[in-house]
């Protein structure tokens, strides 16, 4: 824990035990803090002292309820939202210290897709123009090469170029728009694809199509994915590692199967048990979490989840728990983890 000069509160992060290190770390984040001003111009730490790293080829799911800071984190990883302190490095090159132009040069390496498929496409552009734009800006290849690339991308996301190329976004369904958005994000051949709640606005039957597509694209183009969602069930199949966030901090981070099989943080297990299961014989939710997340303007002292945690003790109020490894690859920030 280091004392940051300006902010009065201890610059407590929940530790760095979970960092994997090694040379194939693609993205390295250290003590990231992102603040924003609310309507009543108070400063709120949407992300307060968060560290993580990504290994090439993994899919890290970032899960949490509304207001936990996951979307802010996504934008901060891309430095579309500038962070107050802490560092984000892509293969050693810092995004946080980069100038506007240096940051711009790094853009093709990391791309993003969004929650509302329709509004992430400019209504005045045809599909060809949408996918061609990144190629044009970075003048990748001749006109013919760009044309071929557009057809290749459309085919790989399961759309027939002949049918779609000359039409506008409002002529497509949500699922199709998301496919176009994915094709655009792959045009520059990025290494990291950040997906901010990509399927939340879609119907169940269409969600599965997009989730499978993202896995195919990852294998085909050797991507590393960051998958932001509020739905633990949706991320299960897609993710290799899952990180659970609460009020701007990490509660637990583990390999996908271990986390669901044996959740060690009380919040993670409450989240899992609240998911409605499509099986009437399943025992109803054993442990319903009471209350709602406190307002981020004045988070509780020590462990932020203690106000709703069934196992909270005096210790939880005084000292913020640090992430520690309870079993291979499973890290929990809790003084009294579930066994």
């Amino acid at each position, binding site marked *: 824990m280091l004392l940051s000069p300006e902010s009065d509160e201890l610059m407590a992060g929940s530790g760095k035990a979970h960092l994997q290190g090694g040379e194939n770390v693609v993205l390295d984040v250290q003590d990231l803090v992102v603040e924003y001003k609310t309507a*009543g*111009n108070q400063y709120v730490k949407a992300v307060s002292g968060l560290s993580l790293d990504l290994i090439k080829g993994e899919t890290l799911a970032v899960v949490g309820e509304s207001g936990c800071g996951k979307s802010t984190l996504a934008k901060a990883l891309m430095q579309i939202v500038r962070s107050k302190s802490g560092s984000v490095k892509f293969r050693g090159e810092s995004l946080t210290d980069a100038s506007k132009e240096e940051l711009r040069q790094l853009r093709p390496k990391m791309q993003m897709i969004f929650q509302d498929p329709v509004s992430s496409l400019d209504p005045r552009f045809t599909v060809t123009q949408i996918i061609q734009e990144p190629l044009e800006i970075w003048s990748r290849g001749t006109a013919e090469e760009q044309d071929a690339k557009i057809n290749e991308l459309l085919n790989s996301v399961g759309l027939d170029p002949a049918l779609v190329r000359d039409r506008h976004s409002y002529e497509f369904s949500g699922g199709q728009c998301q496919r176009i958005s994915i094709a655009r994000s792959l045009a520059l051949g990025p290494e990291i694809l950040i997906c901010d709640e990509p399927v939340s606005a879609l119907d169940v039957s269409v969600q599965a199509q997009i989730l499978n597509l993202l896995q195919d694209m990852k294998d085909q183009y050797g991507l590393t994915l960051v998958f932001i969602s509020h739905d633990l069930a949706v991320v299960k199949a897609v993710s290799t590692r899952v990180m659970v966030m609460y009020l701007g901090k990490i509660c637990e981070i583990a390999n996908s199967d271990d986390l669901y099989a044996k959740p060690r943080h009380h919040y993670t297990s409450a989240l899992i048990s609240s998911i409605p299961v499509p099986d009437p014989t399943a025992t109803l939710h054993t442990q319903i979490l009471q209350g709602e997340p406190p307002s981020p303007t004045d988070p509780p002292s020590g462990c932020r989840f203690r106000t709703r945690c069934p196992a909270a003790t005096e210790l939880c109020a005084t000292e913020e728990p640090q992430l520690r490894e309870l079993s291979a690859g499973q890290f929990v920030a809790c003084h009294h983890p579930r066994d």
Partner: protein
Amino acid sequence: MHKLNQIFQALTKLLLVLVGATFLLSLIVRLLPGSPADFYTNAFNEEDRLLQIKALGLDRNAFSSYAHWIFDLVRGDFGPFFMSGGSTRPTSLIIAQSIPRSLLIMLYVQIVSLTIAIPLGLLTAYRADKAVDRIISTGLFAGSAIPGFALALSLGYFFGVRLQLLPTIGYVPIAEGLGEHFKHLILPVASLSIPLCASYARILRAEIISTLRQDYVTMAVSKGISNSRVLIKHVLRPSSTSLITTASLNMGALIGGTVIIDQIFALGGLGQQITFAIFARQYIALQSYIALIAIAFILFTVLADLLIGVVDPRTRNRNV
């Protein structure tokens, strides 16, 4: 605490607008070729002329003249009204004589417009897209687009010149007989009210239609209470915010904006004083008139925000 600095920020912005508007005008007005000095000094020799110019305060540069003017304004003195021979009369007198008329006319116009617009807005919204709405809305649309002076001239011609029913010139204060007072004001108030009440009705109609689509109106209906009660208890209040804002903006505009109506009906209100001040190079007086309008504009904007705060608590505690 932060509610205070929200209000503080809003006030600083409005003050900036007030100072900006008046200073801008004082700069432009000073560009008037043929400065008042030529009009209002009739000394034979240079020395007397300089004395008279000094008396009129015309020797000051732009900034000091503005500073003096602001300093006087704060103390309620609207500055000198230039008279020939270097003497001056307090502009406050002229203001005291013309402002009450403009305020009165503005009040009548607002009352007339709102009393006609609210029922019309409610009716057209409630009967949206039916025959009655289509007819009235087209009429309202045409009404809201007709320029004020076109109405003034045509009404003036028909009722004044052709039918000799109503006087078209002059203003009669209440003291000199209520009947005459109102008779003289029918045409000016009508010319201003028709476009205003038409646009108010259209704003209210659009607002109510969007409120009727909200879930909480369906929720209210699902309680089994009568439609009229739903309309009054649940629909009217949340739909009044943009009407209040527009009405308050118009308050400010009405005071000065009636320049044309003042001129056509020779009412002697602030509008006419402004036109006269421009042609007579009374630029200190002009600054005060414009300041009055800007202050009114700001006053009514703040008033509107307060009223909306009462009507619609969402705006009040937005920081939850």
